[in-house]
């Protein structure tokens, strides 16, 4: 069993290292908040998730709204404590804070499945959407625990509106109630702003973390050799890197999900009617088991020379609801014995030499992208029917998530999530990481987001940051990590400079 305690600086690196490896202080304990309790209760309803999200974010959103819009002023601008209260006021400029809900008829819906002719007695839950959600009859609401209000977005730039007003974000909106329609005419939006960030202590030399995703071992048309090359590179036997980042300086590998390919659901389609409920055939058993053996071997080899954190993804054999729990020991029997291997949840957060690294296996970003219209996402040729955003779009989405302090806003509405009920939403960002990534994307992209030090308007003399914790600017490296099985690429992030390099292992001859 792997310990969550920081790995001692001298590490567990085995003697057989081809090169002498730099070691780092790795702390996995921040990931603990994504670990579900042993006794899981699937009783509480999803309302608790929104409720606790509102509770943790409202104060921050309100604070930053007051910086943006100014304090309330008699007869000019008011801050409405409850959304329901706007109904009783005159058409005065009002700021409301609440969680956004987009009512869209194209969202996958189990009730809609009942109308689809099928041979199943009971329709299966809908699959991930194969089209984007927006339609002309969509409605957008803002809601708090006291009520909801329909939004009139005609005064906003439509691109801004669709990207910012996504289900699950907690926002402050300025506008006024239109008495005629009963809706709230929005003219400006304000975000919570990035959460505080731990300061970044100097590092004496270059150190890298390597992030990869969708290794998809066992995929029918997979490039087996590419994974071998990656393995050799990581073990340090691939020779000097032309760009100067020696593999010896890689201190951590993060496998961001989808180590095995998506299993075709054998129980759909008309023939499945008859096949359902029978035990798995022996061939099918192997199909399930074989890729995991290869993943286990790969991880064993790497872990013998390098600390590895393996996150599950959508295709992996772990639970479905986010947060996904780590692989079970029995699925990775041999690599699990190596203490260098950490089986971690998705989303995952750790700190390496005090650099906070946070990321997901991509589901929140993929789902988020569906809230925009068709033109902004692309149909994926390789995985028919799946829609995935471009690299730049991924970065925009990640930036928004940071600004809104939430890493999976569309949970639980269109992204399946565990029904949290203890008053906390673990996807709320209490602090801003230094590296923020999303795995399993169609292409690599990366951006350094710098948020300048903000002076409060109210007390201009003070050098306090709006969050009152750390002053100074915040710097985050955001990364769209491409699928390895499609691009052969992995991403290396330099922890000293937060610079980012992409390495390709595709076997193109």
């Amino acid at each position, binding site marked *: 069993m*792997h310990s969550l305690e920081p790995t001692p600086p001298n590490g567990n690196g085995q003697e057989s290292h081809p090169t002498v490896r730099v070691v780092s202080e790795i702390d996995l304990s921040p990931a*603990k908040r994504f670990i579900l309790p*042993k006794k*899981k209760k*699937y009783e509480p*309803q*999803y*309302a608790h998730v*929104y*409720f606790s999200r509102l509770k943790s974010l409202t104060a921050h959103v309100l604070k930053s709204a007051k910086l943006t819009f100014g304090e309330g002023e008699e007869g000019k601008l008011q801050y409405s404590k409850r959304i*329901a*209260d*706007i*109904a*009783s006021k005159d058409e005065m400029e009002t700021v409301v804070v609440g*969680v956004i*809900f987009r009512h869209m008829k194209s*969202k*996958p*819906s*189990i*009730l809609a499945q*009942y109308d689809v002719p099928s*041979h199943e*007695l*009971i329709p299966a*839950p809908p699959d991930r959407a194969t089209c984007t959600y927006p339609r002309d009859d969509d409605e957008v609401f803002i*809601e708090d*625990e*006291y*009520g*909801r*209000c329909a939004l009139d977005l005609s005064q906003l730039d439509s691109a801004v509106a669709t990207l910012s007003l996504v289900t699950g974000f907690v926002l402050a909106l300025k506008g006024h109630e239109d008495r005629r*329609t009963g*809706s*709230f005419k929005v003219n400006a939006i304000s975000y919570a702003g990035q959460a505080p960030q731990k300061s970044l202590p100097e590092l004496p030399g270059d150190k890298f973390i390597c992030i990869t995703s969708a290794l998809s071992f066992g995929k029918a048309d997979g490039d087996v050799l590419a994974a071998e090359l990656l393995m050799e590179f990581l073990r340090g036997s691939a020779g000097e890197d032309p760009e100067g980042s020696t593999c010896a300086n890689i201190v951590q590998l993060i496998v961001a999900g989808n180590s095995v390919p998506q299993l075709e659901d054998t129980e759909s389609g008309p023939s499945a009617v*008859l096949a*359902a*409920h029978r035990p*798995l055939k022996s061939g099918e058993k192997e199909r*399930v*088991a074989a890729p995991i053996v290869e993943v286990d071997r790969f991880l064993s080899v790497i872990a013998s020379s390098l600390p590895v954190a393996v996150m599950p993804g959508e295709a992996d*054999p772990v*639970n*479905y*609801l986010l947060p996904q*729990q*780590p692989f*079970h*020991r*029995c*699925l990775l*029997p041999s690599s699990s014995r190596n203490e260098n291997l950490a*089986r971690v*949840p998705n989303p995952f957060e750790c700190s390496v030499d005090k650099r906070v690294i946070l990321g997901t296996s991509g589901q929140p970003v993929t789902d988020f992208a569906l809230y925009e219209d068709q033109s902004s996402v692309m149909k994926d040729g390789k995985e028919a029917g799946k829609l995935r955003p471009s690299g730049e779009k991924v970065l925009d989405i990640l930036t928004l998530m940071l600004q809104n302090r939430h890493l999976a806003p569309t949970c*639980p*509405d*269109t992204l*399946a999530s565990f*029904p949290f009920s203890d008053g906390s939403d673990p996807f709320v960002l209490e602090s801003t990481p230094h590296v923020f990534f999303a795995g399993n994307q169609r292409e690599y992209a990366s951006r350094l987001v710098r948020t300048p030090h903000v002076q409060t308007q109210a007390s201009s003399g003070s050098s306090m940051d709006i969050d009152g914790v750390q002053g100074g600017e915040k710097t985050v490296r955001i990364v769209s990590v491409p699928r390895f099985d499609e691009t052969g690429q992995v991403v290396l992030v330099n922890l000293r400079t937060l610079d980012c390099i992409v390495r390709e292992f595709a076997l193109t001859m």
Partner: protein
Amino acid sequence: MFGLTEGGSSVLVRVHHFYHYFYLPVTDGIQPEALAEAINRRLWNDKTVPRDRTVVTNVEITTKRSIMYFIPGDPEVKFYKITLLNPRHTKDVARILQRGGLSVKKPNDVTAKLPELPTFESTLDYLLRFMIEVGLVGCSWLTLPAGKYTITEHKKSLLQVEIDVHANDIIAHNPEGKWLRTAPLRRLSFDIECAGRKGIFPEPEHDKVIQIANYVWDHGHKKPIAQVVFTLKSCAAIVGADVVSYENEEELLSAWARFVRLTDPDILTGYNIVNFDLPYLLDRAAQLKVADFPLLGRMIGQPTTMRKTRMSSSAFGTHESHAFSMHGRVIFDMLQLITREYKLRSYSLNSVSAEFLGQQKEDVHYSIIGDLQRGDEQTRRRLAVYCLKDALLPVRLMDKLMSLTNYMEMARVTGIPLGWLVSRGHMIKVVSLLHRKSHLVDLLIPDIKRSGPEGGGGDGPQFEGATVIKPEKGYYKDPIATLDFASLYPSIIMAHNLCYSTLVRPVHLAHMKPEDLSKSPSGASFVKRSVKKGILTKILEELLAARKQAKKDLKAAKDPFLQSVLNGRQLALKISANAVYGFTGASVGKLPCMDISASTTAYGRQMIDNTRLEVEKRYKGATVIYGDTDSVMIKFGNGKSLEECMRLGEEAAEAISSIFPKPVKLEFEKCYYPYLLISKKRYAGLLWTNTEKYDKMDCKGIEAVRRDNCRLVANVISSVLEFLLKKRDLQQAISMVKKVISDLLQNKIDVSLLVVSKSLTKTDYENKQAHVVLAEKLRKRDPGTAPAIGDRVPYVITKGRKNEPAYSRAEDPLYVLERNIPIDNNYYLENMLRKPLERIFEPVMKSSVNSLFVGEHTRTISVVTPKKGGMAKYTKVRLKCLGCKAPINEGALCAYCVPKEAEHYTKNLNTMVKLEKAYSSLWTECQRCMGDICHDVLCSNGDCPIFYRRRKAQIDLNAASEKVSRFGLDW
């Protein structure tokens, strides 16, 4: 008359100088004046009216004919036209004359006693008499020429303008051309909530009215004018709606009545308002002595009264109902309307909106309503939002179903006021048509003594409807062409000139030329059209011509609102034309005439038979496999293609039409291919009107819609039909059924599919019925949430004790889910599935049907152990290995299965993943449907297909997750 100007101003027109009248055949030697005097005197003597009042103001002699019977020579007859000052006395006067014995002075001063005399047209409503005379039809426009009316200062009503006018000065407009438009009728839709005591359905003697939600919405407008909710005790604000709160109930009721008067709607709507909301409010207001509450009508100072009625109608069945007198407003209850016009599994607002609006609706059980009311302003707000939605849905339904538009068109076509369409049966429509037409040609309609229950009509002994050609049961893989007689009964009536006024009595037959007569297959004789055209023929011809015109206009119309009006018109015309036959056949109707209706059906039967003979004569190898009231199904022979059958069908329709008198027309519309004929009125097939693609799967009389079946039956049947008809794969259909049966026996069928629900009407049922017994059981368990009278009780049949009767084994589905109580699978197989399946498979599999129910697939039976109760009390549950079920002490697997840990883990995990997907999609769906994401879903809508499923997902997922966690977690 209550009306609107085009701009939407409400107008009350008070019409003066229009007097009611009726007719009486002239008795020789009795002068009109003497008759009038005699009647008036008799009324004074009987103390019906005080001595200073004159009831009969005028009697004159007119020349008319009775509509009944054709008499050789068609002579005119003299009638007294008796005019009355006040229509209220019509009945009394008519009764005096009908009973006979009235003493009248003859000119020679001899007093004669009148015999019993038949009266004519005394039962015609005063209002209808007026409308006929003026030429006014329902929902139409009229002009009052300038200078011919006066505007009243001292208003007696709430309308904006009040006008006095002489009856002769009214100009009525036919609703055509520029008068086709409709007025923007104001609708008020409302819903009330009552705080019931625990376990008792709210009663106005005890339970408070706590909320009344309202939508005010003009017909034809896109947005409502107002959304207002009246609440008892404070209620937090609702965006987009006005919330008005009161501390005491009397004020609330009084304020609502004021609101109704203020908004002054033309139409009051809602869901079940006639039998729940309105009576409840009126009773409650009486209980609390809120004096101004009943003033809901438009006449100042005239309270709304209510009486219980029984309405029976052959078309709508017998219903206990309420009738209200609310001047100037039409009460348009969407529940009544939908039950009349649609056949559905359930008529709850939930399922109706799911059916027509495609949305499920949150349902708050009334046992929770009390709690919400006792909470704070937030919980009351919650309730108000729910209440508002219930007020909104009826309007949305009305618009979606075009109810108001269609009813307005019906009022125009048949010429009766809108309100009558809602409160009366079909009969009144034909009465109006008949009177209107007869009035023009001086025919009088006799009054028939009625012996049936009060109401708009009755269900007389229906004749042997048209015989059906005996169905040749079977599964037809060849296309079956269907020939339909277009508007069969109306065209028979027209073709053979059947009418009251053309019917010849047997005594007169000898005096008639045989060539002027035609004798129907049922033995009645009618004169031919060339001698005298029947009134019914004229009415029908006009209706059908108008329908043709409406359809033509519909094609040309661009404006969607106009389109809906025209479509409503053509529908109304069709329905009215078909109602004529029914009118002549209703034995307790206004003017039944069995000779007409029996002749109609007899001709119908003859035509179907002739068609069969003709088809089989003309086409070699063709057989008519089935014939219904107005259609025949033809198999043209083996191996004919669809295209060929369509061509032959078309040709046959044309050819055979020519052997029948005009306007009878045989039409080819569709082919069934393939076709499954189960029995009389039960069949299914793919319906084709072109050769490219079938239009739909058409099922008649098959179990899918029956209300007292569980979903499993409906789903299995539709799957079977899908396989048989669309895929034409008998083997797959059989294996599908076998699999379902096998799943059922192994407890793998989702409980939500097994739920049956029945409405609890009376507790003292003579026969023990499952839902009644269960309701009693639930009351003992928790009187607070037990179902009350009027509720639907959902249940599943459980195994129970040995020999326990099925009715006492019914159990609440949620209770079953939570306690894992075993379901009686065999009951479902034998009592639910077996018969419908046998019926469907019999034509296909013949005698081997039984093989569906026996064999390999029925061998595995799993037994569930209940979590609580029964033997479970004495047993201790021991952990079992998840691989081989061997008992173990801890963990997931026994020592032998550990080497296969990954395999067993994956298997358990996969089960869990599936349940997780279901769980998340089910619960997010409910959260979305509720329209609120920050509060728990409270919905108790058992009609929703996912209601039980979402609870089951919770339970199953907890169990699956527990299994997975037994493998040990290492974080």
